[in-house]
């Protein structure tokens, strides 16, 4: 007895468990790969499905293999001889280019880097394992999903306004060709022949009636093979998809005065990228505002933010002013979740720190979901300021803000390796809980 079983409706993703195991296994490599690509991409450019190329280290599956290249002798047979006779010799291909599949697999080191596609979800999951967004209150309140129409292919039924003309006409043309529908020209030609036959002398009645019959047939056929038939018609189809409305704006504040070198900026950039990625996970739309400051602040684009230099003193409060100004203008708190990340080397004009603290306490912190202050030190300084309590003026001032506001965080970074742990700590689950 033969059984036919329709398995198509069985649950898919049977190998999901294996995929998860694989991702877990390759986690170190994947993390490295993502970290590497961080360096060369823009802050907002990390939210797509990406091709991840990882080395096979860690996911190697070694087997005992023979290696006929090092020593020994063997015979093998190949198909497709054209010009060789017994006794001829053929130069061996340079190492790397295999003579054939056998050689390639014999060598055993043929496993090169391994490329596959990870969804954004998977990449970010790996990135943000254990991380939770702080202060989720406003987001959850705001998550009233909107519907959006999205294209969903072509259908055979729909409203006339959605007719897809190209598809419809293509079908119609194909059908007319297949059913040999006479064209207008065909009919005109028959009519002309008929007219000519009627003019003939003597008149040939048989020919005329044959032509008449042909003409009648052609006209009839044109009637029953319609120019456009209902089966030709195709419609564009749309489906509704929910879109969350929650949106966030991220203010990146950075001191670009002479004391901030390439190294400091690079570290800051990495931090901003992580923050951006992190926000992208939660919010449909994330705006990024770059504010740089010396003794006065400007809103600039990303390129200028990271790569152009400005000379001048350092007055941090100007950046806070600028941020408030932009926020009032464009990002009403009713519609936007506001995040801010400030990077600095910790120096500011004396007296300014006090001013900053006042601004933060009274104006900025009530607006913000989260405010992170990152102080970038060099490694020697890091040792000096081993304790949380000691530090430059700005650091000490900000510590007082942090005591007041649970969603204000201060951290110090000295080398790239510090960033991720720091980030981890800033957004730790326990803090949100």
């Amino acid at each position, binding site marked *: 007895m033969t059984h036919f079983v329709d398995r198509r409706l069985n649950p898919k993703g049977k*190998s999901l468990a294996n995929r998860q195991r694989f991702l877990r296994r390759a986690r170190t490599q994947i993390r490295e790969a993502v970290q590497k690509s961080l360096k060369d991409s823009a802050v907002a450019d990390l939210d797509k499905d990406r091709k991840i190329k990882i080395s096979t280290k860690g996911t190697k599956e*070694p087997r005992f293999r023979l290696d006929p290249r090092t*020593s020994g002798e063997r015979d093998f047979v190949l198909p*497709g001889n054209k010009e060789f006779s017994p006794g001829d010799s*053929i130069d*061996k291909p340079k190492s790397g280019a295999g003579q054939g599949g056998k050689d390639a697999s014999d060598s055993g080191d043929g496993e090169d880097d391994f490329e*596959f596609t990870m969804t954004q979800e998977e990449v970010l999951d790996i990135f943000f394992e254990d991380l939770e967004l702080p202060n989720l209150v406003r987001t959850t309140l705001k998550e009233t999903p909107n519907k959006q129409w999205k294209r969903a292919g072509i259908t055979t039924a729909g409203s006339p306004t959605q007719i897809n003309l190209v598809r419809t006409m293509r079908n119609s043309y194909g059908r007319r060709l297949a059913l040999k529908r006479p064209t207008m020209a065909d009919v005109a030609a028959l009519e002309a022949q008929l007219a000519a036959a009627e003019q003939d002398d003597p008149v040939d009645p048989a020919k005329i009636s044959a032509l008449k019959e042909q003409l009648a047939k052609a006209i009839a056929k044109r009637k029953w093979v319609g120019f456009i038939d209902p089966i030709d018609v195709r419609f564009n189809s749309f489906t509704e998809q929910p879109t969350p409305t929650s949106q966030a704006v991220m203010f990146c504040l950075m001191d670009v005065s002479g004391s901030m070198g390439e190294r400091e900026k690079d570290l800051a950039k990495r931090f901003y990228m992580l923050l951006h990625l992190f926000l992208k996970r939660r919010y449909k739309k994330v705006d990024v505002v770059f504010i740089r400051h010396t003794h006065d602040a400007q809103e600039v684009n990303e390129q200028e933010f990271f790569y152009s230099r400005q000379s001048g003193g350092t007055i941090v409060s100007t950046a806070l002013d600028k941020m408030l100004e932009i926020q009032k203008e464009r990002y009403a708190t009713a519609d936007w979740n506001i995040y801010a990340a400030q990077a600095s080397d910790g120096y500011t004009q004396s007296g300014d720190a006090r001013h900053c603290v006042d601004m933060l306490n009274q104006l900025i912190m009530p607006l913000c979901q989260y405010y992170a202050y990152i102080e970038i030190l060099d490694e020697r300084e890091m040792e000096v300021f081993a304790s949380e309590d000691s530090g430059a003026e700005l650091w000490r001032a900000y510590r007082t803000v942090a005591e007041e506001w649970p969603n204000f965080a201060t951290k110090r970074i000295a080398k790239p390796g510090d960033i991720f742990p720091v980030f981890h700590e800033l957004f730790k689950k326990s803090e949100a809980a």
Partner: protein
Amino acid sequence: MSANSLLFSESEWDFATVQRTYKAIEDIALNDLGLDVYPNQIEIISSEQMLDAYSSIAMPLMYNHWSFGKMFAREEALYRAGYSALAYEVVINSSPCISYLLEENTMTMQALVMAHAAFGHNHFFKNNYLFRQWTNAEGIMDYLAFAKKYIAACEERYGRDEVEAVLDSAHALMEQGVFRYRRPPRPSRERVEQKRQRRAKYEEEAYSELWRTLPAGIEPPAAPMTTDPEDDFGDDMKLPEENLLYFLEKNSPSLKAWQRETLRIVRNLSQYFYPQRQLKVMNEGCATFVHYTIMNMLYERGQITEGSWLEFMHSHTSVVFQPEFSDRRYSGFNPYALGYGMMADIRRICEKPTPEDRDWFPDFAGNGDWMGVLKNAWANYRDESFIEQFLSPKLMRDFRLFALYDKADASAFKVSAIHNEGGYRQVRAMLARQYDVGAADPNIQVTGADLKGNRTLFLSHAMHRGIPLHNQTKELVLAHVERLWGHDVKLEERAA
């Protein structure tokens, strides 16, 4: 319905048409060709399920391991990028024989696939001596179900990392985990079941109402340990041993019971697949020859249209295409091409032999009974012996086969024989040797273990014609052996 009415005329398929076509194919396969098959079970699956299916080495049930996930990721990447098409079918050597058909196939392709898998492969699975002797088609699904459950239970109990480590090491030795000559001992599931029954029986006999009166917290005495001769790893290690996994399972001083069972599962799977590795050419050849013959008979009887016959021929010719060695597409011999070529050639020799064929194959040239010759070959040969016995000079000329001699320190290959009068036998013997899995796999054996002293395990590799192991992979695999053995492992390479 008369025998020669059209089975289908459209390319879309539905279950009624598939069933009708199956019946017609079955009629030809059983009555005209006289094939002998396991009952068939045909399953329609989607492309994603097909990817699923062959990333767990084409078994419908499989324990979880990251390497299958890696394979899936790789296959999927290739498939999505359009580098590789999906297989039209996957067939499993079990009883009933399960064939998967891809839902995207046209009706013609479904017919081809049914002829190919449900009758070609199926007949081969049921009749070839290697499959008959070495694999248990009735039991494999049960065993896989057991393995999946067992590994999952171990993961739960001992942690994923622990289980993964053992599986990694076992997989590395999979090719050294087969018995090549003696019949493997019976799988453990039955033994475990026996043990459980023995114990249950003891408990039943020892049951006494008295124990129920014990106050809470006091347990009745447990059943005495039943000693099992197979669990006992003592002095008698029966060396040398070619099956490394078996040896480690039985004798490793550091493995726990569940780890031994895990090794056993991997080893049993490896053993199950071992015949397939020796029968690539014949298995695919048989299936391809059968589908070719059946599809042509359907066409001759007017049961399929000319259009679908052409579609079938298009697919068939691309399946049996053999690129030449200098072609960019060349990646070794195409088992479909070689197998089908040889079997079609056998039919030609039976029906229209040339004098040369009569010379080379006096016992069947011109006897007309090609099905008899083929059935005998399918039942009693493996790739190596099949090529050695049946590869004809004509086919060697068609494939333009030539043999190269390769010495590692020479800068050039030497052509040692080609497809001419002087070279036929040599080329044929060499090609046959190429398909001898026993010779292609490195010959590694356990030669000793210092159980009383520092517990070093000694392996030796008998080099065939002086070819050593690839150094890097050797070190990696040895690390896995050390993990399973728990102490130092030494591998010696010596000339055989």
